[in-house]
């Protein structure tokens, strides 16, 4: 299974020693599962799971011109993004299509970190670097380790490791701390719907940090398989499946995020809606998959972008792009490789009891 052309992370040998099933994701050899996707999913919802997310990309943008120049490249509203806070948004092409979805961290008034999808690092880097003129741009992906600790127990685990309270960090806030004399950025964000933290450290610290977190009895490793079912239950999109260069943020359900007054690339088209990303609950345990047709009265009106059995729902769910004028129907059918499955629209998130936003102060 090992492909010499795939990149590794600082943790690859640890995953293999733990017996993980490994596969290509975004050009990296990544752990898909250890004990099993359902067990890892459930552990994340009830305790805490540790994910290797070193494949994602990190860019640093700095200088007096950083805020103004980034405001013309990203949909993020930088005017209201204060130091210590981070925000979800998009990198758009001229047509309003999504080049990538990304989180922007305001490290200081003139210093930002942008976190992007692993498979999009090169595309994003070239797009952004060509459109920044005075701001300093640096791709620090290879030098940066990223571990996600996600689950209701993640706060107590991290507080025990760092020997300090972290309750002051709000949802979509972060703190720049130290661990073992090295910088550690602790961000209260994640992709699971549970209380959790994304941890950024120097790449050579990722191994020791992984080991130190796994020592805690509440923590187990989880792979990208569980990460996918966890995010699908929350209705969170995955770039390359639910987001692409054709569809706009408004079509993906994020029109409300577009509050920036800046004249960013793609703004004129970002609110265009030809299709809508719709959450669908299937009748039973059988899954729809990416690419399956969505039918209304026997006629195709959309296509499934993500679909899986969802452990916390004990049933299957899907996201699908459906023609805007057909997106309000009460029921659809999904034509899979083997069957036609009834599906009904559902409010997102599918999973309603996630702990991500709980108040800690």
């Amino acid at each position, binding site marked *: 299974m090992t492909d010499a052309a795939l990149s590794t992370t600082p943790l690859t040998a640890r995953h293999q020693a733990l017996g993980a099933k490994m596969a290509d994701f975004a050009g990296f050899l990544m752990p898909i599962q250890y004990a099993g996707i359902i067990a890892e999913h459930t552990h994340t919802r009830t305790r805490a799971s540790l994910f290797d997310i070193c494949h994602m990309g990190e860019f640093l943008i700095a200088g007096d011109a950083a805020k103004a120049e980034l405001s013309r490249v990203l949909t993020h509203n930088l005017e209201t993004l204060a130091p210590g806070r981070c925000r979800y948004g998009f990198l758009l092409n001229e047509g309003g299509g999504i080049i990538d979805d990304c989180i922007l961290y305001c490290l200081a008034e003139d210093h930002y970190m942008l976190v992007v999808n692993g498979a999009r690092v090169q595309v994003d880097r070239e797009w952004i670097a060509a459109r920044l003129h005075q701001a300093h741009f640096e791709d620090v992906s290879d030098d940066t380790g990223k571990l996600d600790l996600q689950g209701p127990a993640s706060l107590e685990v991290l507080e025990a490791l760092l020997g300090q309270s972290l309750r002051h960090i709000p949802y979509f806030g972060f703190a720049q701390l130290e661990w073992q004399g090295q910088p550690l950025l602790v961000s209260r964000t994640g992709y699971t719907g549970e209380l959790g933290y994304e941890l950024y450290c120097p790449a050579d610290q990722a191994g020791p940090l992984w080991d130190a977190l796994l020592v805690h009895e509440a923590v187990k490793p989880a792979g990208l398989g569980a990460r996918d*079912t966890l995010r699908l239950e929350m209705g969170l999109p995955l770039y390359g499946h639910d987001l692409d260069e054709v569809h706009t943020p408004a079509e993906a359900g994020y029109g409300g995020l577009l509050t920036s007054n800046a004249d960013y690339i793609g703004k004129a088209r970002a609110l265009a809606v030809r299709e809508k990303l719709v959450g669908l609950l299937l009748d039973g*345990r*059988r*899954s729809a998959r990416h690419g399956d047709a969505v039918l209304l009265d026997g006629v195709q009106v959309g296509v499934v972008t993500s679909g899986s*059995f969802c452990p916390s729902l004990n049933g299957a769910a899907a996201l699908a792009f459906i023609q805007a004028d057909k997106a309000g129907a009460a029921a659809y059918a999904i034509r899979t490789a083997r069957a036609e499955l009834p599906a009904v629209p559902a409010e997102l998130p599918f999973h309603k009891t996630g702990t991500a936003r709980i108040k800690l102060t």
Partner: protein
Amino acid sequence: MIPDDLLYTKTHEWVRMEDDEAVVGITHFAQSQLGDLTFVELPKVGDTVTAGEEMGSVESVKAASEIYSPVDGEVVAVNEELADTPEAINEDPYGEGWMVRVRVTGGQPSDGLLTPEEYAELLEE
């Protein structure tokens, strides 16, 4: 994880012959490759199945796979428990995870099936 009292197929089903009936499931290797199973589609009692032809399917969180009948015959029993607990196939593929019982018709069922030794060799390839 290859019991020596069973016969096997190249498509990773197992067969336990009990007089003229064959109990059929998927192997430990098959379930481990698929991962956590979430859905099973099986034939109905009374259905005719044909050796080498599709008789059902399984889905896991990440994958789906066909199940092929190892023998010719008529389905006389189906493991109905699997509809609600497909994880039994992961936990006990040769026991609680059995799928169907087929009354074998026609020729020798062992024709074309693999011995445990042959199946072990297949997995090593």
